[in-house]
């Protein structure tokens, strides 16, 4: 019986492999018959088009297609990473707000979720983009709420610190402060468990995290020179600019995904048995501690798996950037495909990249999920 089952599965696997092989070889044969170029050789050729935003890595029209696609990848990562963090924060706040005893807050959160969750993301993006580009003035009439800060339909221009050698050391100090704070907290927990004596670990940690960089900052002579944006010719130069496309995409993805995360958080908290609240209260734990020590650890077990798929959704939805002109991976790969005519290769690159991003997020979240799972419980 078992042998038959194995044989059937092997046969199915072979059949699938055959179909894949057949389609692939047929495609290659057809491409050759029509003399359509194939292969990944085009990646090394000069791209010849410009890209609007290339943070962290310089790019010009004389660079290769491979570099252009890399810029697209960085842009995708940038919006997805920041989006995931913001959506999680906003979603958690909204989820908890919907459970609040404050009527106005709870109804507002409910209304937000229902509205944002039920309007297609693409429509929201077009709407946000129109709001930004149609309502804000041109660069010559830019709003300037603070000196050096400009808001126009070219984006949000703001001053940034002029790079200084001490900045790297301040970063190192911040990192060291965080590690030390973590060690202190661990030590304090252990001491309290052994001796029952509390230690103000939070205050000590905060002092370390903030104090160490501050000391380095002052020791370096407080380097606070600002690079201010100024209007030169058509646009702002100097400082940093948050483009309308990036702001639209980030805002759209965050607001949309936060609505789903809010529901997941609410469901997670409500999934914790009422008895757990009552037991915590009867032990004399105040409400915030009840949440942090009793409810959330149990709620997280319910929250993490669906949260993972929201992170995946957000990342994949970032490909809607094409519609509003944010140069993400798909947008640049599309342009590349069109200039070179090599659609199959381009799509293969897009698929491979999204697959690896998605699998990485899955692996990470599964690892986290396993860590917070009930010890000894069966998966």
């Amino acid at each position, binding site marked *: 019986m078992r042998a038959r089952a194995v044989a*059937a599965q092997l*046969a*199915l696997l072979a*059949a*699938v492999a*055959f*179909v894949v092989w*057949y*389609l692939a070889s*047929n495609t290659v044969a*057809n*491409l050759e*018959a*029509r*003399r*359509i*170029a194939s292969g990944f050789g085009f990646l090394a050729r000069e791209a*010849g*088009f*410009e*890209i*609007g935003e290339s943070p962290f890595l310089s790019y*010009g*029209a*004389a660079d290769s297609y491979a570099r252009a696609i890399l810029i697209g990848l960085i842009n995708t990562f940038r919006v997805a990473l920041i989006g995931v963090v913001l959506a999680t924060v906003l979603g958690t706040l909204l989820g908890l707000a919907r459970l609040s005893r404050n009527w106005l807050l709870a109804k507002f959160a409910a209304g937000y979720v229902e509205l944002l969750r039920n309007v297609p993301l693409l429509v929201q993006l*077009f709407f946000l983009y*129109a709001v930004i*580009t*149609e309502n804000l003035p*041109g660069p010559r009439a830019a709003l300037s709420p603070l000196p050096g800060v400009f808001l126009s*339909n*070219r984006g949000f221009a703001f001053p940034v610190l002029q790079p200084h050698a001490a900045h790297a050391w301040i970063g190192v100090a911040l990192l060291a402060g965080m590690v030390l704070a973590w060690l202190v907290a661990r030590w304090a927990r252990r001491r309290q468990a052994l001796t029952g004596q509390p230690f103000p670990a939070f205050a000590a940690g905060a002092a370390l995290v903030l104090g160490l960089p501050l000391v380095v900052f002052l020791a370096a002579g407080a380097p606070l020179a600002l690079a201010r944006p100024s209007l*030169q*010719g*058509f*646009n702002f*130069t100097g400082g940093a600019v948050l483009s*309308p*496309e990036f702001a639209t995409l980030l805002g759209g993805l965050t607001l949309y995904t936060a609505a789903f995360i809010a529901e997941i958080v609410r469901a997670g908290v409500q999934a914790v048995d009422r008895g757990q609240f009552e037991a915590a209260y009867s032990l004399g734990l105040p409400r915030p501690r009840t949440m942090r020590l009793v409810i959330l650890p149990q709620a997280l077990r319910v929250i993490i798996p669906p949260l993972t798929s929201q992170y995946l959704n957000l990342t994949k939805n970032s490909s809607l950037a*094409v*519609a*509003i*002109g944010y*140069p993400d991976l798909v*947008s640049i790969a*599309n*342009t590349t*495909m*069109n*200039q*070179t*005519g090599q*659609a199959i290769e381009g799509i293969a690159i897009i698929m491979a990249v999204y697959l690896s991003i998605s699998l990485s997020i899955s692996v990470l979240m599964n690892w986290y999920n396993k860590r917070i799972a009930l010890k000894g419980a069966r998966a």
Partner: protein
Amino acid sequence: MKVRLAVAVCAVAAFASSTLHAQSTLDAVKSKGYVQCGVNTGLAGFSQPDSRGAWKGIDVDACRAIAAAVFGDATKVRYTPLTAQQRFTALQSGEIDVLARNTTWTVTRDTSLGLNFVGVNYYDGQGFMVPKKLGVTSAKQLNGATICVQPGTTTELNLADYFRANKMSFKPVVIEKLEEVTNAYFSGRCDVFTTDVSGLVSTRGSRAPKPADHVILPEVISKEPLGPVVRHGDDRWYDIVKWTLFAMLEAEELGLTSKNIEQNLTSTNPSIQRFVGATGDIGKMMSLDNRWAYNVVKQVGNYGESFETNLAPLGFERGINNLWTNGGLMYAPPIR
């Protein structure tokens, strides 16, 4: 059960992919009864649906002319609106029979995409449009400007080339749909909108809130010969599309229009006799009806008529798109 399903899937896949090669385009077109024509999603004067949903434009006329030549009925066309990015894949994959979508003829496209350009139905060049209030008078003053452009076009590449050659920089805002990219320009997101001059004139005439507020700069930075495209490897279909295009030019040169061609059926001029199919068997050589060219002109008109009805109302001038006899570049090889 599963095994049987898998076998069925294989069989379907094998059948689906083996049909790709089988038929010539002309036979396929004849058997389905219409020409599937890839057009622009909406560029006034080239291909755009009118208020009643009927497609209008010189590219649309090219499609109708092909249908008139093949079926003797210019209405036997179905249109597939395509974005700049979708167009070549649609043609390569066989979704459309011919692409008439203001597409620039370049060597890369002609050789590496598995496509053939049949000729030119509009000689164009790339230009820049700016709001009048910016006070810009030359493209050389555009250093640092934000420029709206559509992706996957030669426009995008020419733009980068031009700025590199003139040691200037710019910020591109790249949006795929024509409607969205022009919205971005008219709302002030960009200082400049660039595309072929024909596209600028058409956009200004049909989409600008106030057309007089926008100027097209004098520099034309590229050659953009626009024309219909067919797949590689089907020479008969290639010939039909090419000579349909030439027939419209030849008709204008011979003075044949949709209104007078009826009387010219009995003309004694040998060129006209050959053209309308009264003598010779040019149609048969192309595997078409001998009155193919007559049908094209009777139902669609000659090139000049198509230009007058579609482009002239938007403010286009004939310019280099005039016949060679009038100082333009439009020249058809002899039909004999």
